[in-house]
């Protein structure tokens, strides 16, 4: 009995002593933390995806607090959370449309292969071997480095062998863009549906010979666009998303189907027929006008 009491007392005293030491230590070693950091952290996505460029969400929260990162630094958290963070930081809520990632290549199996690559299934590793197995220096290699980098299951290798983004799952963290050795992945507004799925800057024949769905910089789309929203820059068509209204006229004239969503042959024929009819009508109208003018002159 005495033994038991001794055990209880000794361990109790020991525990109390340690508890006291810890209590004192917590006062001595107290670190004043900005309560806002916790609040900001609670509004971040919590995926530790690293898309913001900081090591984990904690690092991002600290950077936002320090002012070295914008309140919108965490793309996956979305605009509501960015607004909440802005409120915590005493700033105006940022305005901006939701962005998603887009892969600027739809080549995949259409692209010509120079050799069969059998090494590690990683895009960066593949590009190190004789500059990659594709003839096209701008094409998606399809080994899925971006798929591995995506924390949200939004990336996959599409049926034609190049990476595709599921816009519903994408949070625009852009971790995939950092993983892509060919820098093919860009951030685009989620509401815009028409994109140029090629990044090949080679001119005409060079671009044509390496892939059957490459942009050759012919400029047909540029001529067709009524809103001045697509231009050939450095040998590849680029859409100005501020001007694009999504009419898809460019997809119907693209001879290479490099603008997504690619128009079917049927749609193209139909559009050609409409254009032809329009041209004839315009011609007839012009002729009639000319005849009328001639009649008036007489």
């Amino acid at each position, binding site marked *: 009995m005495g033994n038991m009491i001794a055990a209880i007392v*000794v*361990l109790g005293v*020991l525990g109390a002593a340690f508890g006291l*030491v810890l209590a004192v230590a917590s006062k001595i070693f107290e670190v004043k933390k900005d309560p806002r950091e916790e609040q900001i952290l609670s509004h971040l996505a919590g995926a530790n995806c690293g898309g913001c460029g900081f090591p984990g969400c904690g690092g991002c929260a600290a950077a936002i607090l320090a002012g070295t990162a914008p309140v919108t630094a965490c793309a996956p958290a979305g605009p509501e959370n960015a607004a909440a963070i802005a409120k915590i930081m005493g700033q105006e809520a940022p305005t901006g449309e939701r962005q998603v990632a887009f892969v600027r290549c739809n080549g995949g199996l259409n692209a010509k292969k120079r050799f069969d690559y059998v090494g*590690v299934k990683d895009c960066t590793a593949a590009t190190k071997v004789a500059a990659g197995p594709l003839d096209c220096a701008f094409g998606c290699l399809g080994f899925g480095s971006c798929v591995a980098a995506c924390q949200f299951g939004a990336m996959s290798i599409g049926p034609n062998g190049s990476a595709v983004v599921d816009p519903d799952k994408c949070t625009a963290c852009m971790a995939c863009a950092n993983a892509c050795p060919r820098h093919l992945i860009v951030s685009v507004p989620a509401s815009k549906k028409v994109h140029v799925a090629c990044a090949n800057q080679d001119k005409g024949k060079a671009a044509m010979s390496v892939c059957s769905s490459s942009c050759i910089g012919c400029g047909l789309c540029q001529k067709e666009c009524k809103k001045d929203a697509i231009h050939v820059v450095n040998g590849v068509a680029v859409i100005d998303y501020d001007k694009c209204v999504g009419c898809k006229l460019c997809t119907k004239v693209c001879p290479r189907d490099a603008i997504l969503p690619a128009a079917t042959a049927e749609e193209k024929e139909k559009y050609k027929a409409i254009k032809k009819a329009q041209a004839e009508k315009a011609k007839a109208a012009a002729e009639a006008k000319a005849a009328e003018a001639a009649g008036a002159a007489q």
Partner: protein
Amino acid sequence: MDQIFELLAITLGAILANNFIFSQFLGICPFLGVSKKIDTAVGMGIAVTFVMGLASAVCYVVNEFVLTRFGLEYMQTVAFILVIASLVQFIEMFLQKSMPSLYTALGVYLPLITTNCAVLGVVLLNVQSNYNFISSVVYGITGGLGFLLAIVLFASIRERLVFADYPKNWDGFPIALVTAGLMALAFMGFSGLKVW
């Protein structure tokens, strides 16, 4: 001189022949859990070494001057858990205040060590082997170094496993456990190590 030889024997034993992970099978949880990257493995290893050394010292004092004195040796396990838990808490607070860089480097691994059985193991083994204060501390630190060696080697192998061609259904823990088993076999070779 004898003392030095004893310490050398303890050191070699703790790091190689009686490695905590590969021959005593203590601390397997963090060994498997945080060995996916070399960086994190190094962090964990250093944190464990640090805590094992300190815990050995404090537990020796507690055992010698409190438990033995009151004839309460049978309460060692409970008392040592108490000591280790408070010690880790204390170290965490201390580091956060005085060495924030080390605190962020050790990060989440420090609190994890509270439940690391290698730490409890080392203090109980100290008592079992009747080590004096210096031997206890040396055994604690070198045992931690053995843990560091094991986890860093293991993490390096796991990083390279990505390039290995093994059946897909062995992915993850199965291949990690096989690797650990093979490493334990390799470390068994050190048990023939008899210098003194």
